[in-house]
């Protein structure tokens, strides 16, 4: 299972300042990717030969729903892959619910119970994320929860599982919080694995590249709002810059890497 990915960080704007956010390294605080460039990147991506059959375009940010022409952005992405997939803090989901379709894939980030989530993401953000889940469930739009596991929310795993069941999420994406330097927030890699195994007994989870081998810059790339090409949103090595053709910056397929060489290099086993 797997797909070639194009992660489009369409805007650097966000309403929140999360403690573990990995997107604070953009050059410009309010950069936004022009629609025409989104179109060019999608075309380039879909015409580039990758090792896998399936292609996935994922919208991210910042907060993608803060993109100034969000509806047009969704329409554009639908032209290429028929549906929209994005990761959101959920705040603007009720406002834009009419834009989404049943087969879209909306991942709402929730990092614990109310107290924990708000301590990581800001006061009041938990209730807004829950409202987003309610809204998505009510409208029958495919949705999931993204849960970035760290020391601050390790005790909230059962709460997140319950949310997943209550709001009929298609899966729970237990993300590994991967730091860019040594930090006390990170759980050990083996703790994360155990947590993920536990979660997978209750709800559907994803098999991640951290488990199968790092494919940064092999199966896809991420593009920042200021138009740099990252090999992966987590590793963030700059491998090129728009309008360079994607095929020119990709690594060879046989280069699948050990994640402790890339995004996990600051993690403790």
């Amino acid at each position, binding site marked *: *299972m797997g797909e070639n990915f194009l992660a489009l960080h369409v805007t650097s704007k966000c309403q929140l300042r999360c403690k573990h956010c990995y997107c604070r390294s953009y050059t410009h605080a309010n950069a936004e990717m022009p629609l025409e460039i989104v179109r060019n990147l999608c075309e380039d991506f879909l015409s580039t030969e990758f090792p896998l059959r399936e292609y996935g375009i994922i919208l991210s940010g910042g907060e993608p729903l803060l993109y100034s022409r969000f509806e047009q952005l969704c329409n554009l992405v639908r032209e290429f892959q028929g549906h929209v997939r994005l990761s959101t803090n959920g705040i603007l989901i009720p406002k834009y619910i009419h834009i989404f379709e049943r087969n879209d894939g909306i991942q709402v980030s929730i990092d614990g119970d109310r107290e924990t989530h708000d301590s990581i993401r800001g006061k009041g953000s938990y209730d807004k994320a829950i409202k987003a889940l309610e809204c998505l469930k009510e409208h029958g739009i495919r949705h999931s929860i993204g849960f970035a596991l760290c020391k601050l929310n390790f005790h909230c795993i059962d709460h997140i599982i319950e949310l997943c069941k209550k709001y009929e999420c298609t899966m729970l994406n237990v993300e590994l919080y991967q730091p860019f330097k040594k930090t006390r927030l990170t759980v050990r*890699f083996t703790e994360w694995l155990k947590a993920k195994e536990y979660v997978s007994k209750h709800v559907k989870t994803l098999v991640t590249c951290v*488990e*199968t081998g790092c494919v940064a810059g092999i199966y896809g790339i991420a593009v920042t709002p200021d138009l740099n090409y990252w090999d992966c949103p987590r590793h963030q090595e700059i491998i090129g810059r728009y309008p360079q053709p994607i095929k020119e910056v990709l690594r060879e397929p046989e280069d699948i890497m*050990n994640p*402790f*060489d890339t995004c996990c*290099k600051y993690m403790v086993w």
Partner: protein
Amino acid sequence: MNVIVELRREINKRRWARWRARHAKAREKPYFYCTPPPSPWTCAPDHDCIPEGLCILCANTLHEAACESDQKGTFLAYSWGNVDITTGLCPGGTGGNCWAAAIYTSDPMYIPSNFKIKAKVELNGRCSTSGGVKADLAIFIEVESLGISDKVYYVNAAELSGGKKEWHQEYLNLWTPEHTATPGNYEIKVRIRGQGTCCGEGTYAAAEFNNRYGDGFYVKLWDIYVQGV
């Protein structure tokens, strides 16, 4: 300090490589009430695709079922199965029947005494018919060893004949009725079958399961789930 950091990283890399080798198989262990481990698709044989009757010119019957495989030829789970069918009818022929199916077989999953099974299936493709051919698409959830074969999704010939039906990233959550069984581990099959039937009238007729790009009718199994009731 850098030497220590490098050394630690090197140790972690080796630990990960060892862990990966050890868990490549173990992680595929099934959990009760959860998604089963990856198992191969198989593709149905084509022995039913034989034109019937006296039609000498029935050369136009094509059928194919294919499953995505790796370079060693092992079929991949959670990947695409391809049900690719074209049935043709020669002038004045008496008809024929052609089907192809992608079949997913799980590793043994625990089934309790009272249960029902859910399969989540994605369909990508369309069926078009012309000249009076009838076609249908059916999805079965089967536990062969228990004698269960539930047809959980069926688009009948009348709905498909003479027109087009398209499934574009169509996700189907399909449930069997409730069953009883002796608790134990059983293989579960999900069979996705497309069928075209020529009825022998008209000058040319065809039923085609294909997608908008003309490279197949793709089906994917996302999940099998056993629920005790």
